[in-house]
């Protein structure tokens, strides 16, 4: 069953289409990843879903309720983890969670139970009395999550929840996302970190310039990349003739030499069948080989292939 439906969603700022006729579905119980570079329109899409931004066209439904017609019903079902650290530095961790829990109508014993549950879930129960100003970046991010889950929402929307934190906190957060999903929540997870999306999400949508340029499971998307693989040869010296022969091979799609690194990068369709031929060419020209690396196709490759740009600025 499709839990979230985007139908021809449009958002304009002046004449710029930030979100360009977006249509896709997210199934109940899914961890859906929205991948794209900065400025792709991911956050705008999330903000429209949470009712924080009005859309210029189309509609979004959550659990059958339209954000346009029944925003309160939609909001009841959503817990949002914004990209910013939307917590109060002047309130303790417990007060932060309690404040938002009270806004959601929790009170009495249930309030205390849910606040404890949320803090325990993100590993901050021991530090509940402390101010966030004494927390590390990762702990603040975890508190940011706790403030979004204490009312047990059916849909949790996480907008870049791991920006700027250490690997340990990142792992903790990723594990929390898996656990929330196991407990029954549908998750929408946006990031420009390809590895996180690959590790977490059952389905992935790739956005660029306000459009959804690809959608599917990780495997489906990799297939879309045409099963291209890269073979990287670290050589002792370069040779123009050898490079030319490699490029002319029928199974080779592209071949580039990085003179500085003394590497030859070859994009091929099926590496096992062509590898022997390429090694033969190098041997024929007396080029010593130091190392061969095989790079499997990934979402980065797909994005590069579809847009001509990298996901992240180096």
């Amino acid at each position, binding site marked *: 069953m499709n839990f979230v439906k985007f139908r021809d969603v449009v958002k304009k700022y002046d004449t710029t289409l930030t979100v360009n006729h977006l249509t896709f579905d997210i199934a109940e119980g899914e961890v859906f990843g929205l991948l794209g570079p900065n400025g792709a329109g991911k956050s705008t899409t999330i*903000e429209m879903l*949470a*009712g*924080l*931004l009005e859309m210029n066209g189309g509609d979004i439904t959550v659990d059958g309720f339209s954000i346009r017609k029944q*925003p*309160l*019903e939609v*909001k*009841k079902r*959503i817990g*949002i983890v*914004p*990209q*910013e*650290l*939307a*917590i*109060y530095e*002047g*309130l303790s961790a417990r*007060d932060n969670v309690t*404040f*938002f829990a*009270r*806004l*959601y*109508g929790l009170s009495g014993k249930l309030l205390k139970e849910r606040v404890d549950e949320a803090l325990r879930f993100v590993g901050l129960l021991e530090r509940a009395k402390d*101010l966030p100003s004494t927390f590390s970046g990762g702990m603040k991010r975890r508190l940011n999550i706790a*403030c*979004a889950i204490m009312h047990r929402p059916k849909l949790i929307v996480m907008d870049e929840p791991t920006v700027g934190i250490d690997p340990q906190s990142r792992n903790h957060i990723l594990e929390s996302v898996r656990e929330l999903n196991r407990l029954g929540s549908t998750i929408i997870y946006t990031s420009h970190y390809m590895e996180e999306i690959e590790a977490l999400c059952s389905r992935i949508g790739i956005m660029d310039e306000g459009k959804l340029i690809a959608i599917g499971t990780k495997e489906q998307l990799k297939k879309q990349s045409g099963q291209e693989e890269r073979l990287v040869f670290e050589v002792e010296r370069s040779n123009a003739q050898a490079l030319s022969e490699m490029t002319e091979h029928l199974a080779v799609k592209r071949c580039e030499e990085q003179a500085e690194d003394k590497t030859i990068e070859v994009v091929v369709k099926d590496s096992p069948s062509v590898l022997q031929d390429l090694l033969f060419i190098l041997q024929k020209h007396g080029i010593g080989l130091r190392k061969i690396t095989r790079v499997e196709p990934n979402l980065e490759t797909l994005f590069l292939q579809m847009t001509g740009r990298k996901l992240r600025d180096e």
Partner: protein
Amino acid sequence: MRIWWTTVYYEIIKYSKMRSMLLLLTGLPLVLIFLLGNAFNQELKPAKVAVYISDQGELRSGIESFWKDPSIQTYMETLSAASETEVKDLVREGTADYGVVVPADYSSRILMGQSAEWKAYPGRYEERNIAARAVIDSYMSNTNLKLAAMETLGAAYSSSPAASSSDETARPGEAVFRVGNVSGGKEDVFKSVSAVQYYAAAYLIMFLLYGGMSATLSLMNQRSRGTLQRIYAVPGAFRKAVAGILTGALALAGLQAIVIIGFSAVVYDVDWGGRVGWIALTCLLTAIAGTGLAVTLGSLVGSTKSLQTLFGIVVFVMTFLSGGMVPNIEQMVGGAGKYTLNYWANEVLRTIMYENDPSKIWSGIGILAAIAFCLALIGAVRLPKVVKKHA
């Protein structure tokens, strides 16, 4: 109501943890009231008074003796002038701190029981104006006392041809001699209150306005941090929560007023007039007006720093123009003070301090309420620009 109350409660908790801000909002006005109030209460310097007596009547010699009396030399130095024009010139040039002209018909009017005035020309230094006026007041009281005695005995008064018909004839029991303040209009520079009362009112108002800014700062900070968006994502919470944030700031202003009024009353002996309800209403209206003004300005600027700068300048200028820093500045600024919020709020507070007639207090509160309503209305219209991320 639950959401509103929750937000108010947590806003107050947040403010209670900002100790430096609380100290600034309550401590600084108390220091300023203490410094300025005491400076003006204690340091009355001798004033140079230019005097022209054009009266040639029976009272002239008495007037001359008064100005030469050694007992008043502690408070003022007399400069004799040859004409009223010279008096004006001496005051304008700053050679004299104060000018007095005794009119030609002074003796005759007094002796006929009619009211008479000395013309006074206050100078630029307010403390010296006070000194001069205090001395003249003592002469005035003495003269009125003598005239009252004459009236009782029937001498001179009964011989007055215009005693019962002239409009200017003094009514029984009313002082017949007074000093007309030519360039002013009010009774004295601190407007019938002491210096410390004057500054207590002025700085209470100024810091209540600064307190009003804290609501807008809180909203803008919450907008930039994303907490306001998070509240917006809670079903049906946003408006109530914003109202709660604004109310929290008003509660802070209330606390600030209680501390300033209580401390200044106990420690500095400031007499606030004892009408707690009216004072509370005045503070509330001022804080509402300040909040409305801050929201309006906040909608025009992009950052909290810009708001702090702009609002700080606006409040400072309004305080200055209204005489909150230099008393009786209205003439110098061409009456611009009357167009400030501070002027009307100060007027109400000072009226509460000395006035017994409730109608005069209510009229002041009415004007202040109208200003607060207008500013709050403009603020309400501009509020979406402050609270919405993409508004």
